């Protein structure tokens, strides 16, 4: 277990460094790091401190929270298909964010944007949970997720199309696929408070999720308050997904792929999967964000494209596996 922790931490550290050193400015690594730490006030310092550092930090934060949210939701629903992006929580968060931006609420006070996204995520999550039921099978969960995602995507597109801003309609892709291009520390600070709160909430559910693997009755007998656990998972997930989506758009598949890959490595214990998925999610999003910069440096390729290319085949694999298990 500790070996896995060390390996994942090293991977995240290496990818974080690579994220800092790769960019269209094309400067030497040593020079770049010197500019980052020493800070002579020259243009390279500006690039390192105001462009690459916030981007790498955001990839780390958002990746970790998506991995964490995926692991928590899968643990709670005991369903490997549960993922914030797939079941429409990210999409609802994006709708909340877009509404607050277009109505001007986001300009009214600093945290309005992430809080609106949180509200959107909560509504989306509540809808899916209500539609699929607390012990919803894969089919009802996915169907409810598709319904909520489609509705949220349609409403997001509608709001952006109705915007008086001619650029807004082109940003439907951003809200659906996510991107970290040209984000600044403003966005880090916007996302941070809610993300920390959500991560703390999700980190506290480990024991409950472990007990839940034995079934709800057994967990209840072990002193786990099921209603409280449910509330914590829902609120925590909505906080981290809402905060991430508000600044980077809806990034799918991270919460699906990472817990799936890491589950065998932690002995399938949900409590250990939580922190492992947080590290793994950070690594995956950092890698995806490096990939979009290397593949098409000048075009702002969306993160969702890369994560979906990795995630969609895995999703199909999961469905096939579930089918063979059922039949």
């Amino acid at each position: 277990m500790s070996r896995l922790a060390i390996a994942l931490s090293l991977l995240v550290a290496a990818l974080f460094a690579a994220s800092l050193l790769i960019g269209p400015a094309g400067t030497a690594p040593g020079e770049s790091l010197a500019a980052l730490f020493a800070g002579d006030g020259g243009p390279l310092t500006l690039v390192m401190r105001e462009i690459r550092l916030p981007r790498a930090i955001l990839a780390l934060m958002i990746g970790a929270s998506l991995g964490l949210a995926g692991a928590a939701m899968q643990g709670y629903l005991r369903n490997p298909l549960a993922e914030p992006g797939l079941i429409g929580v990210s999409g609802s968060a994006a709708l909340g964010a877009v509404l607050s931006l277009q109505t001007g609420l986001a300009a009214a006070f600093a945290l309005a944007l992430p809080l609106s996204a949180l509200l959107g995520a909560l509504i989306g999550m509540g809808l899916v949970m209500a539609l699929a039921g607390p012990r919803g099978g894969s089919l009802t969960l996915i169907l409810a997720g598709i319904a909520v995602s489609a509705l949220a995507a349609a409403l997001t597109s509608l709001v952006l199309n109705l915007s008086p801003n001619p650029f807004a309609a082109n940003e439907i892709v951003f809200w659906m696929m996510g991107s970290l291009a040209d984000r600044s520390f403003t966005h880090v600070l916007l996302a941070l408070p809610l993300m920390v709160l959500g991560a703390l909430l999700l980190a506290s559910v480990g024991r409950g999720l472990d007990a839940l693997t034995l079934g709800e009755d057994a967990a209840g007998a072990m002193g786990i308050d099921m209603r409280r656990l449910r509330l914590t998972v829902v609120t925590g997930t909505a906080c981290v997904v809402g905060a991430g989506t508000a600044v980077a758009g809806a990034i799918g598949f991270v919460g699906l792929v990472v817990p799936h890959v890491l589950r065998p490595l932690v002995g399938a214990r949900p409590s250990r999967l939580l922190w492992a998925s947080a590290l793994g999610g950070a690594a995956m999003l950092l890698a995806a964000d490096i990939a979009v910069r290397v593949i098409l440096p000048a075009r702002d390729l969306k993160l969702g494209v890369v994560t979906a290319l990795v995630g969609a085949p895995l999703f199909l694999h999961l469905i096939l596996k579930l089918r063979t298990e059922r039949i």
Partner: protein
Amino acid sequence: MPRRAGPCILASPHASDPRRGRGRRSVAARLAPAALAVLAALSALAPAARADTPGRVVSMNLCTDQLAMLIAGEDQLHSVSHVALDPRASAMAAEAARHRINHGRAEEIYLMQPDLVVTSTLSARHSTAMLRRLGIPVITFAPANSLEDVHDRILEMGAALGHEDRARAIADAFEENLARLRTTAAARPSAVLYYANGYTLGDQTLAGQILLAAGFSNAASAAGYKTGTRMPLEVLAMTAPDTVVTSRRYPGASRAEEIMDHPVVQALRENSTAAAITDHDWLCGTPHVLRAIEKLVETRRALQGDGS
């Protein structure tokens, strides 16, 4: 039909107007009476059949809207596009309000029964193709990519509307004023035009030419961005221009425009006390670009901290 013949007769007195363009057009001035005589003869022969002076003109594009409003005769321009009403994009929004408004759709324009439709080569091809199929003459104007193009477009619009002389006068006045504004300053501060989505414009664009005419050097062009393309924020930071010229915001929010608030852009803009913002004067190849150059010259002088 006779009602529409009016403008062409009204137009002819400009040809002999002695106040306009003395000097290098003295030949033209001497020929003018002869031309007038020919015109008068033509008008007398067939007052309603002058094909080159369309009586009812519809413009479908912001830039042709403005050129047509400048050059067209009384009641000749029937309709302009709805974009011309938007003061953020149009330098002549007040004038546009006096015309009927179209939305660039073939159906509504056909129902206006225009004698001529003017539009940009870039605007909705399907609409213009449909209008041509329906038998309505359409003249397309290439967008202006340089200040020379501005001069040419004015003359082209004059020819299309049958007001060559009025257009000639406007074009000459434009050249005169441009020559007055143009600077041959040795010390050119560097600037980058940086718009929504990190879009920059190099020397081979109208905005790039405005920048050069105002005495700046275009740092984006020096970095290899000759036309209009996306310039990564990192490259902008490494280019470190003396100032960054951004564009005016639209209402409602967009992530595309958020880039102009990025700390890097703000850091580059705070060097200059009067950081410039491009507006409706920059968009189209019309004489209004002179106003843009004038304002930018002031920015440059403030930046250089002298009165020269």
